[in-house]
Each structure stands twice: as structure tokens, then as C-alpha cells.
């Protein structure tokens, strides 16, 4: 059964189309990440599901129940959808445990329930009476997660919940969140502008651009076979080359390489290589690429190369592991591993 399904959802604010004809299904217990640049409509989509906005067209179902269409909808407070916002949105006047109990306060076991939730989100029970301002950013997000889980929601919405944290803590909380949600078994929709976060979090990755759904599918598949060069570049560093396709092989400035994807013979195709597929090898004699600049990034380096007797249009820039890189100015060869992907 699908936990959430969106059918042809559109929403405009005045003349601006925020989202347009979105179709999406989220399986029970699965994790979906919506990723897109700011202004792509991802937050609007989340607010439509939560019930803070109403769609202009289309239908939204949760657990097979229609909760909104163009004319009517279930009010937000009756959707039983959990939501964790960017900075936690903890109630500043309530203690940690009262924040967690907020949605279930009327029941008499709410305290025991809240304490069990604190265990689930890996918060020590001794912190129950702390005030939100006494908690770190990561702890606040754990409280927000526990608060949203308390009502056993049918669907969990995460609105950039990790973006306010610093890098190390972000990864730690992300994997903790995945663990917690798996234990709670609730289908989750994460909205983020960070493609790395989306790829590592999701079973299903959805790319939005200008209010349209560009592509949806398993993250690895999208990374390997994106719908277009813009999506390719959005999901990670991309080397997009003009190529001639003949018999399942592409001829490009890097030489010949096997292709996936369309594999239709064409004299003006575009292919995608990821930087990890390229390897800089020292050339004894007759190397065809010259290293123009090397920009250090620590474990990796931005390497800019160009064909020795080609012009500026043969320039390539990519990240390479910072091991045994020949110095700038050297003549080198470039080796390709794996297959290139031909854009449709």
C-alpha cells in the first residue's frame, strides 16, 4: 500500500507557479527525499501534504484516503502527519518532556509514552525537565522528532531538519534519524537542497526543478543515469562531453568508451562521466593532456586539464584523489573506468 500519493498536484501563488502537475508515490515504511535548488517548489509540496496550503488542482491521498483535492481537504490538525522543521520549532515555554507530550497530553499514559520516545531518539531520561534553550541543536532536533513520532503519524515530513547543524553533527544525526524512523516504521518524506544528504538518506530520490518533477527513482540510478545534464550536475560533479555513438561505444575527446543509456547511434550525442571514473596517469612519452592548474582541497584536488594541441574548448575540470598527482604543467594521460552514460 502507498503511504502517500500525489496526483497531478499544482499550486500557484498569484502568477507564480510553485508546483505544477506533480505525480509521486511513497511506499509504506520507505524514505523519500525531495531535492531541488531553492525556489524549486519542494517546500510548497511539503506544506501541501501537511495541510498548511491547499492545492489548486490534483489529489493527495494518505494511506489510500483522499485528504485533499482542489476544493476540499482535511484540516492540517486532523491529518496526523508528523513534521520536523528546519530549526526544530520546539515550544520555548515548555520543557523537553512537555514538548514531546504536546500532541498526546490528554491521555494518562502520556508521560510513560514520552519517556519511551526519549529512549527511542536516544536522549537520556534525566534531561526530561530541561528547557529547549538548554539543548544543543542536535538534541533539539531529536526532541522535535520524538514530538512528531508521539502521535504515531501515518507519514513523517522532514523540512531540512539537518541544515542548521554543523557538518559532523549533521551526518551523525542523519544516520540516527534513519535508524529511528526505520524502528518506528513510518514512511518519510525529506525535503533538502543538499543532494549528498538526499542520496544517502533516501530509498527514492525525487528531483524538482522550477516546480516540475524532473526525475524520480532510486538514488544510485539517478546518479548514474540522470534525465538531463542539469540534473546530472545537480546530483554531483559531472563531466558532460559531446560524443559520436557507434555500436554501443562513444567517441569523444577522451577516446573511446562503452556507453549505457540510450545507445542509439548518433553523431551529436551527449555523454556523462563522473569524476571518479577518470584517473590521471603519468605519461612517459606522448601524453596528450596537459595539467593547467591544480587546486588543493585536501583529500582531493580540482584538476584542470586540456588537450595538448586542442584549444580552450577541450578544457576539463574534475576532482581527482590527491595521490601521486603530477605537478601542474605535466603532460599526462587520462584513463576511464566503467561506462559512460548517454543522455536521452
Amino acid at each position: 500500500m502507498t503511504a502517500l500519493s500525489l496526483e497531478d498536484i499544482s499550486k500557484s501563488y498569484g502568477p507564480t507557479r510553485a508546483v505544477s502537475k506533480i505525480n509521486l508515490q511513497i511506499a509504506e515504511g520507505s524514505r523519500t527525499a525531495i531535492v531541488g535548488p531553492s525556489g524549486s517548489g519542494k517546500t510548497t509540496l511539503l506544506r501541501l501534504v501537511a495541510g498548511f496550503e491547499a492545492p489548486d488542482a490534483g489529489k493527495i491521498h494518505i494511506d489510500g484516503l483522499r485528504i485533499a483535492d482542489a476544493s476540499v481537504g482535511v484540516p492540517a490538525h486532523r491529518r496526523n502527519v508528523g513534521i520536523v522543521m528546519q530549526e526544530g520549532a520546539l515550544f520555548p515555554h515548555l520543557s523537553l518532556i512537555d514538548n514531546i507530550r504536546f500532541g498526546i497530553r490528554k491521555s494518562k499514559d502520556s508521560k510513560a509514552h514520552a519517556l519511551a520516545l526519549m529512549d527511542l531518539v536516544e536522549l537520556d531520561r534525566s534531561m526530561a525537565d530541561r528547557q529547549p534553550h538548554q539543548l544543543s541543536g542536535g538534541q533539539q532536533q531529536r526532541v522535535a522528532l520524538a514530538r512528531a513520532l508521539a502521535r504515531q503519524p501515518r507519514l513523517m515530513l522532514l523540512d531540512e531538519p539537518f541544515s542548521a547543524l554543523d557538518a559532523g553533527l549533521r551526518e551523525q544525526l542523519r544516520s540516527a534519524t534513519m535508524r529511528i524512523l526505520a524502528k518506528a516504521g513510518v514512511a518519510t518524506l525529506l525535503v533538502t537542497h543538499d543532494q549528498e544528504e538526499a542520496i544517502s538518506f533516501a530509498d527514492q530520490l525525487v528531483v524538482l526543478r522550477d516546480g516540475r518533477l524532473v526525475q524520480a527513482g532510486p538514488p544510485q540510478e539517478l546518479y548514474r543515469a540522470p534525465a538531463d545534464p542539469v540534473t546530472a550536475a545537480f546530483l554531483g560533479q559531472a563531466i558532460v562531453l559531446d560524443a559520436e555513438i557507434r555500436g554501443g561505444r562513444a567517441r569523444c575527446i577522451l577516446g573511446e568508451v562503452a556507453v549505457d543509456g540510450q545507445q542509439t547511434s548518433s553523431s551529436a550525442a551527449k555523454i556523462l562521466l563522473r569524476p571518479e571514473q577518470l584517473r590521471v596517469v603519468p605519461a612517459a612519452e606522448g601524453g596528450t593532456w596537459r595539467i593547467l592548474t591544480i587546486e588543493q582541497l585536501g583529500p582531493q584536488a580540482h584538476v584542470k586539464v586540456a588537450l595538448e594541441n586542442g584549444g580552450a574548448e577541450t578544457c576539463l575540470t574534475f576532482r581527482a584523489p590527491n595521490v601521486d598527482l603530477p605537478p601542474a604543467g605535466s603532460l599526462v594521460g587520462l584513463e576511464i573506468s566503467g561506462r559512460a552514460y548517454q543522455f536521452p
Partner: protein
Amino acid sequence: MNRPLPPLPTAIALPGVKRHRRRGSSPALVAAALVVAGLALIPVGFVLWVLSQSSWETAASLVFRPRVGELVVATLLLQALAVPACIVLSLAFAWLTERTDLPLRWLWRALGVAPLAVPAFVQAYAWDGTFPLLRGLWPAVLVSVLAYFPLVYLPIVTQLRRLDPALEDVAATLGERPAQVFFTVVLPQLRLAICGGGLLIALHLLSEYGLYVLVRYDTLTVAIVNQFQAVYDGPAANLMGVVLFALTLLLLLLDKWSRGNRRYARVGAGVARPAPRFRLGRTWPFWLLVPLVTTALAVGLPLVTVVRWFWIGGSEAWHGAALTSATLQTAFYALLGAASVTLAALPIAWMSARAPGRLQSFIESIHYYTGALPGSIVALALVAITVRFALPLYQTVAAVIAAYALLFLPRAIIAIRSRLGQVPVELQQAAIALGKPPLTAAFIITLRLAAPGIAAGAALVAMGITTELTATLMLSPIGTDTLATEFWARTAEFDHVGAAPFALAMIILSVPLCVILHRQAMGVSGQ
């Protein structure tokens, strides 16, 4: 860690659907805001009604006569002298307390706000009791300056503290002398503060009554109230009210024009680096005279006078019963008024904080303009309306409270609006997502968290009511004795001794007002 979750105690009910409400505030909220705005327009309606009722001849004979001309000239002359004097004094005062190494700056800063604790008519009473022969224009100007200069001193200080000292440093590196820097860099950035404070003072002078009666200087407002007390609801008072209305409009237009279109870059709430202080050197005793003389006259004189009369009166003049009854009545009006005004301010404050738009800014501008109207016009309008359309309300507590609402709504709106705006909308949405209906979420989250701002707004209104004289005199039911009206009745009988306890009570009750305003101006976040 591996403890299983206990089952959820309460089952979540199955959803019921509702029609979508498209964006914007709830219709009930908008309707409430519109009703309040409609009430605020009563004085404007009154002016239009007076104009439509009176024939041209009667109007002309009542308005275009030497007496009215004299009053208008006297009123404008007072404005032209007192407002610039307030501005110059406040600039000097603020520069000395904020930008120089004058000794005891913290004390002068506090004393610069303190005159607001002394109602203007108590200022005049102290003056009249000390220099009974000094009357007319110049004493009127002097006492006006002493009573009202903090209204422009406060915004100037606030703005001075926000200015980025980097601009002044840059000007200095470009070769300007410190005095030049003040006039070319600092002063232009104070323009909005000076205009805003100057307008506020001008509006207060226009509506002031008690002060000018005591120093025997007839302004338009004095004439209106006297005329009103002689003939209730007569055409002469009403038409002079229309003239006063026109003067108010003139001031508002003048203010709009003087603000200009130039924008000044707004900087954050605070600047990390304090501005450099100008060294006064050996001339400091001379500069010390500015705050010393000002506060001696504006705070020292009234306090000494009141305490002296109080002392002379001894226990016989204590009027224990009258004082108790007046304090209770004042508290009654202040609390009821504060509660009603706060309630009336909530819908529009909520719209401003949560759903700003064209309708909201239109309603806000109605309150901004009608809030500037003098108490005498408000009172004339309410009397005219209750007598004609709602006689049971004539001379009732309800009419007085309505007048307070018209006078004090803007300050409540501003206080509540800014605090509501600080409560993140996400908190209320989080509460809704956790199953609270929107109205419940608004009450238990947003209003709960904005409570300090709402309380501050209510306190400002309550303290305004405590020292309100003009409208209270004109509207209150017979037998009403508030601190202000009791004080007034006794001064009218030259009973300085008898008036002293009431003056003292009003001063004491106004101290919290000064504390609140001082904290706001100095940039202390009021929690």
C-alpha cells in the same frame, strides 16, 4: 533502548473534510479589525457631519472671527517656538549623554526620560506654584519643552545607538573635523528620529489642555474645552474642533513632506563596536549645565513643589478617603481601558504580524491617523454621537472607554504587533500538525508566547489613561473622580496643598512607563 513503544493510548479520529480557505486571514479576524477601524473613524465622521450640518453662514460666522484667528495664531506660534526648542535641547542632551565623556552619563540618560513621569499639567502646576506671576507665551513654551522634550530625546538616543560608527570613521579619514562629522554624517541619519519625535510633540501640544490653562495661555484646545463646558454639544465648540482637526492634518502632511523620500540604510538592532566618545576636556563643567538645568527644572522642580505642598498640608490635607476613592476609580478605568484597548488592538496586530497586505496596511494607516487626533475632538465626536444615536451611552463609562480606545489604540497595536512578529509562525504550525485546531494553537502557542508584549502594550495604555485629563473631563459620568480630575478640581480652586497628594500618586504610577520606555530606547530587550 530496545524497549518497545507502548501502544498509543488514544486512537486518532478519522478525518473529516472541509472546504479550503484560500490564503489570507480568517474572515472573522478581518471583520473584527474592520469593526475596530470603523470605530476609529468616528471622529472623522463627526467632522464631516459637522461640516455638512452647518450652513455656510453660521460656519463662517463662528469660524472666521478674530477670536478663532487669535487662537489659531497662538497655537501655531507655540508650536513654532516649542517644537524646535525641544529638538535642539534633545540633540544637545543626547549628544552629551551618548557621544561625550560627560560625567554621570547613566544618570542624565535616566533623568532625560524621567519628565515623562510628570504629567504636563502637573509640570504647569509646579511652575505656577513657584513662579505665579510668570504667565503667557514664554512660560507656556518653557513648560511645554520641559514636559515633552523626552518624546524626541528617546528616538534620537535610540537612533544614535544604532548608527554604525564606521560611517563617522570614514568621514574622519576624509578630513572632516568632529563638529563637521556631526553635522554632515550623524545629523542626516537622525532625520527620521527627529521628524517622528517632533511630530509626536507637536500633536501633544495641539491636544494639551491642563498645562495651558494653568499658565494662562489660550490655545485652540483650551478654548474648545472651555466652550464645551459652557455649552455642551454646541456648534461653536464643534466648529472649532473642525479647525483643530484641520491643524492636525496639516501637521501630519508637514511631517510626511519633511521625511522626504531619501532612504537611510537600516542597520541591525545593535552595533558591536561602541561609537568613539568626544573628549570635552576642561569645558565639561559648562556642558554639564545642559542636563543639570534641564532636569532640575523638568524633574526637580515638580518633585520639590509637590513634596513641599504635601509637607505643608500635613495630615489634614491628606484627604485619605478622597485619595483612596480616586485611586480606585483610576485603577478601574485604567484596567478596564487597558483590557478593552488590548482586545481591540489584537485583530489588526495579528494581521500585521501574520498576514500583511493591502487591507492590513490600509487599516493600520487609519489607526495611525486617527490616533493622532486630540482628545478634545474625540470627546466632542463621542458626545455628539451618543446624544444623537445612542443616548443611553451618553456620559457612561462605555463612552469614556471608547475615547481611551480611540486615543491609545496605536500604542497598543505597535507593542503587540512587534512581539507577535517575533513568534515564529512555525511554532503554531507545529502545534497544528500535532493535532491542535488552528484557533487553539493560536491561543496556547502564539498568544501565550507574545504575552509579554501584550502585557507591555496594556501597561502603556493603562498608564496613559492614569494621567489622561482632557477627554476624561469632557466625557466622564457625573460623580467620577479619577486622580487627574480630582487634581484638576482642586487646582481650579487654587487648592495647591489639596492637589499635591493626587499629583504625587500620578507621578508614582507613571514611573513604570518611564522604565519601559527607557529600556526600549537603550536597546535592552524587554523580555
